[in-house]
């Protein structure tokens, strides 16, 4: 049983979705408990896999699907490979998805009452896709799972309001372009190596001359593909609207996870398929990509500063944070890569926490603008505790995890001599400080905006544009957000601090993956 943990991570949401497809349309009440159970089991299996990884002497866990194993040292079927990086991602994805199911119960019933089974099936399959991406060691299987997570993501966004449908359509176009680029790149790798297993591609590629044009273009196509999918500036156009107009539960799942998983693919391709020597030395593109990410950080921060809609502001912060991680991964030293992976984890939790807070605030006050925060410390103290912790982490103050991951990124930037990237990181922290202290100040000092009273007409109009029905919002019960929403949010807030306090343990795990980068540095 124990050795089946890696596949169980994937099978729990998959079979949960099938079960809902068969039972849920007749008995919609069953959807929620099935989803919670499937996600809880998946989360447990992910933690079990993590323990297996720690216990294994090589630091990796291999699982053969179809049981063919390796013949003559070639994988002839699809295999799973879990190392420290994928194990951390698996625990992250499954726990975020689990907490979000609990959080979403009330909102799903309010926002999409007639589509509850659809929502939960798509939700479970999206999670299965994301988990599969992080665990698989097969380049084409990865593409199939990217396909699953994209398709379910489009539908989960479009299930909401009219505006969401249009933004989802934008996302479909951009996402399909990105996925096609990625597939083409994988095809080029197959033409040159004759295998799809990532470890085998790596070992065969070592024998191919470094100046192979097809591999160079293949790498370029794969990178462009994942950059589109992760909304790396200037390829970010689809993201803000898609995440801002999505139903609350969708936004809170996709905003923290989808872009991060795409960054995971980029790092996996760089470290495990092409290898750091090839990416950093043979190609020599590090300066260009780090400069691009500097631009992404600065531009994302500027856009975030100029938005008055809460969710829009958060989505532009995501665009800036993507720049952090791409830049960190391309600094070509282990500090930068450690920072990028660490930030992957902490940014996912921060974004998750902020989206949950905004979901609660918007649903309670009926105001999607920054002004919704006026006087909230008195009215919604528990929500604001979570918000404050997440905001401090976004700005990068200790002891939250945002400080430590940014610390590694800064050190990596200085070590690599990329001072414009360091400057952009500091600038963006400053912008985050302005953005969040503005909200904190508003929430702390500004008294009663007319929250208890009927909402003014223009607010009403504004809210209607966002597709929800303002009349269904209980304005009077501002303070009593249900515990099913507050509980998960507080858990994540505590997680933000825990991930910071235990930073030495986390970086030790990450160190197992980036160890081969140190070899590279030693050689220089």
């Amino acid at each position: 049983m124990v050795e089946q943990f890696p596949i169980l991570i994937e099978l729990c949401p998959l079979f949960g979705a099938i079960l809902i497809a068969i039972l849920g349309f007749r008995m919609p009440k069953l959807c929620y408990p099935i989803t919670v159970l499937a996600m809880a089991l998946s989360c447990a299996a992910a933690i079990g896999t993590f323990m297996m990884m720690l216990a294994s002497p090589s630091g990796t866990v291999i699982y053969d699907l179809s049981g063919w194993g390796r013949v003559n040292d070639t994988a002839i079927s699809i295999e799973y490979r879990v190392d420290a990086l994928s194990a951390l991602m698996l625990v992250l994805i499954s726990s975020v998805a689990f907490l979000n199911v609990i959080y979403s119960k009330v909102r799903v019933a309010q926002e999409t009452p007639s589509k509850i089974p659809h929502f939960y099936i798509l939700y479970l399959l999206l999670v299965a896709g994301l988990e599969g991406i992080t665990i698989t060691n097969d380049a084409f299987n990865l593409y199939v799972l990217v396909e699953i997570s994209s398709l379910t993501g489009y539908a989960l966004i479009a299930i909401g309001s009219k505006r969401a449908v249009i933004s989802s359509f934008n996302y479909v176009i951009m996402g399909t372009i990105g996925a096609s680029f990625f597939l083409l790149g994988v095809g080029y790798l197959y033409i040159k190596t004759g295998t799809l297993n990532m470890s085998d591609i790596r070992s065969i590629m070592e024998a191919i001359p470094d100046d192979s044009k097809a591999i160079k273009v293949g790498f370029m196509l794969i990178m462009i593909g994942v950059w589109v999918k992760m909304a790396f500036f200037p390829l970010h156009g689809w993201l803000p609207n898609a995440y801002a107009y999505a139903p609350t539960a969708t936004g809170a799942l996709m905003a923290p996870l989808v872009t991060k998983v795409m960054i995971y693919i980029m790092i996996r391709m760089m470290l495990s398929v092409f290898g750091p020597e090839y990416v950093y030395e043979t190609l020599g593109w590090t300066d260009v990509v780090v400069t691009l990410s500097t631009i992404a950080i600065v531009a994302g921060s500027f856009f975030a500063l100029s938005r008055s809609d809460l969710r829009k502001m958060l989505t532009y912060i995501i665009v800036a944070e993507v720049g952090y991680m791409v830049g960190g991964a391309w600094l070509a030293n282990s500090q930068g890569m450690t920072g990028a992976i660490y930030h992957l984890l902490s940014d996912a939790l921060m974004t998750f926490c902020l989206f949950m807070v905004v979901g609660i605030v918007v649903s309670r006050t009926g105001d999607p603008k920054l002004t919704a925060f006026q006087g909230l410390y008195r009215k919604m103290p528990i929500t604001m505790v979570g918000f404050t912790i997440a905001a401090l982490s976004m700005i990068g103050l200790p002891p939250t995890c945002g400080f430590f991951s940014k610390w590694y990124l800064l050190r990596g930037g200085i070590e690599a001599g990329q001072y414009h990237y360091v400057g952009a990181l500091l600038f963006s922290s400053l912008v985050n400080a302005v953005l969040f202290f503005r909200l904190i100040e508003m929430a702390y000092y500004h008294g009663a905006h007319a929250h208890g009273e009927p909402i003014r007409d223009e607010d009403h109009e504004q809210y209607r544009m966002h597709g929800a029905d303002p009349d269904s919002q209980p304005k009077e019960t501002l303070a009593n957000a249900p515990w099913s929403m507050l509980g998960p949010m507080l858990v994540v807030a505590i997680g933000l601090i825990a991930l910071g306090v235990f930073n030495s343990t986390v970086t030790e795990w990450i160190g197992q993956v980036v160890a081969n980068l140190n070899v590279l540095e030693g050689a220089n």
Partner: protein
Amino acid sequence: MAPMKIVALITVIITGGLLLYATGDFPAWGDPLSPANNSALSRHYIEQSRVETAVPNLVTAVLADYRGYDTMFETVVVFVAGLAILAVLGQGTSRERAAIQRSAERYQERDMINIMTARLIVPVLQLFSLYVLAHGHYSPGGGFQGGVMFGASFILIALAGGLPEALSRLSIPGALLLAGLGVLLYGGTGLVCMMLGQNFLDYHILHRLLPATDAVMARYHAMLIVEIGVAFTVTAIMFIIYAALSSRGRMTGGL
């Protein structure tokens, strides 16, 4: 030209140039020694798949066994596509079902020639699709192709006799159930392998359950089972997509 069009043109030219640039590095067309033809992996499939699975059609062996896990998720992709369309366009509430009933009455009088032709073709089409499904082990075919043809037979009914006519044979909830069962049949086969103590989708252990088979023939038969699962899902989703798109989600009238 609008500035965006110029940007688009430049992007397309650069992308095309990149592709041409890489093509120069490709192995020669049909080269038996190219990596894709001559890698340890391809050689193993070509030389061993018949021995290991007893399936003469190499493509089916790779698709349904060696890379069966991918195919399971491809089936899930098909399932998701249909479900996503229903989720976005909406589907049968009781009010809509009543509307279907009304429009069914309106469509009573359809063109006789269309209906009679469909009546002739549909049974043949369905029988042939079952043949394509079952013969996938020996010739081009299998679950996806067979499923598409079976789904097409329902679409033909809808084209000839109106959507309500087709819905009276395969309702949307029924089709969704069928699609779910298809994925269940595929995943469940893998799960049974796990319950018998092997890895997911390791079919050879199924010889304990299937009478008169050995470990090799168990793979052969299991491949047919999962192909049937694929066919269920593809049939149902083909029809769902047609029904939802042709009637804009209202499930009445249609084309």
